[in-house]
């Protein structure tokens, strides 16, 4: 794993630039004057104790939350409020902390649904599996099968996801997000509730996706070992304030971070 030198990052390498944002819910301040940029092609981990504002940050990045103060630039342009269903069209895909799969569908159908916005609609052709509808379906199926091979879930393609064990459900959810062919992939605690073996698999997939497709990845994770291993950069939040931002090694040795995790101050 190479650690990219952040000093060489030119303006055009920045995918998202979050400037001086504050977000509060009623009286509760979730984020306070946070600056954060996301570089193209990096794996950025957002960490922090419980209630530090990590999920809020992820939702600001995805555009679900609009901060009361500050601006968000996406590829150099100011991003305005967007409808939730348009986030995917911008090239941002995500997984959820508590798995959000389409429980009535098979693994294959779940991943295929991830490609819905890339598909054209022709009811008649689709229903009878002819002409354009058939070609399109086959083309997208091919992509989906690639993802399935990639995530090593061939054997459960036709299994309804509700019946799958937790680790595999998480993998299907990742597959669905990948099906969108996103530029930015947001992972909300991708390893939560997994055993060591499942965690190792998931780490490998995250690194591979980043490496092979050049997908930029932002993740929230509690497992520090994992975070330090796979991230290019780590941002630490505490009580809604960013207290550190840098390479894993640098962040690990900062006194503020150690204090936050040990509950000092």
């Amino acid at each position, binding site marked *: 794993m190479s650690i990219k030198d952040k000093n060489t990052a030119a303006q055009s390498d920045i995918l998202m630039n979050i400037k001086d944002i504050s977000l509060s819910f009623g009286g509760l301040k979730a984020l306070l004057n946070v600056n954060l940029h996301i570089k193209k092609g990096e794996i950025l981990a957002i960490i922090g104790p419980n209630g530090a504002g990590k999920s809020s940050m992820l939702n600001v990045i995805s555009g679900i939350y609009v901060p009361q103060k500050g601006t968000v630039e996406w590829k150099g342009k100011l991003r305005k409020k967007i409808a939730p269903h348009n986030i*995917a*069209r911008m090239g941002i895909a995500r997984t*959820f902390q508590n798995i959000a799969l*389409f*429980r*009535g569908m098979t693994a294959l159908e779940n991943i295929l649904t991830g490609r819905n916005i890339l598909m054209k609609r022709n009811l008649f052709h689709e*229903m*009878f599996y002819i002409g354009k509808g058939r070609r399109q379906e086959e083309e997208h199926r091919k992509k989906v099968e690639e993802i399935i091979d990639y995530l090593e879930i061939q054997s459960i393609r036709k299994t309804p996801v509700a019946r799958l064990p937790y680790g595999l459900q998480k993998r299907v959810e990742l597959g669905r997000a990948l099906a969108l062919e996103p530029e930015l992939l947001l992972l909300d605690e991708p390893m939560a509730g997994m055993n060591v073996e499942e965690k190792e698999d998931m780490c490998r997939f995250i690194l591979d996706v980043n490496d092979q497709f050049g997908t930029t990845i932002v993740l929230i994770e509690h497992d520090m070992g994992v975070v330090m291993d796979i991230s290019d950069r780590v941002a630490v939040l505490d009580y809604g304030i960013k207290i550190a931002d840098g390479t894993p090694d640098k962040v690990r040795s900062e006194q503020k971070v150690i204090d936050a995790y040990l509950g000092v101050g």
Partner: protein
Amino acid sequence: MDWWFFFEVVVGGLLSGVMYSLVALGFVLIFKASGVFNFAQGAMVLFAALTFVRLLEMNIPMLAALGLTMIVMVILAIAIERIVLRPLVNQDLIILFMATIGLNYFIEGMAQLVWDSDVHVLNLGIDEYAGFEIGNAFINKFDVWAALIAGVLVLILSLFFRYTVIGRALRAVADDHQAALSVGIPLRTIWIYVWSTAGLVALVAGVVWGSKLGVQFAISTVALKAIPVLIIGGFTSVPGAILGGLIVGCGEKLAEVYVGPFVGGAIENWFPYMLAMVVLMIRPQGIFGEKIIERV
């Protein structure tokens, strides 16, 4: 035992069961896509049938009237999404259910206010008493037509749900709103699709029932017969609605003819509900319903 008579009762029952299935289908569509039991489905059947029959009475050709009514049902769907569903986004399902009760009375009232509350004869050009014989059994021609129409409708809906992009989006929304949004499926558009489809199914049910019973207020109450159908077949299954309808239709006719005389008749009216109760005790999700799997 007269087997030809038995055959005739069974076939008659199956065919009338198809009519129940038609109404049940509308419920299934909305339940599948939003988890809401749409109490107003019966009113939508009435509204569609009334609109259609009144357009016919204005001497509009049948196909044009059908097309116009479809447009009206789509407009109704858009209005429902805009006025009823959108303000209630993220509310509990029970609240949406209560809203559909209100919607039911509103549509019933509106249907009769805009059109009127008389009984209208709807003639599709099929003699409802004509029939043919298989062996010694008499089969009603109209019922066969109704069954054919229902069959085609079910086939189209099944293919639509299973294989189309929009069908998949509908199922996705039904399963998880948050996840559906995250892959770029717009909830509002999907709701309009669902309610439009339910409206079109209501139109078909309304036309078939209307031409059998006459278009009148009473056809909004056939929706009540759809409830045992749904419980037996499962709320989330299109084929379940069909099978449930067949079981209810066939069961109530057989019960009426063979058990009725011993208990003073009129079994037909309560038999389906009793059947539904038995199913509830043995298989609460219905025959084709999705089993609810909860992870502990």
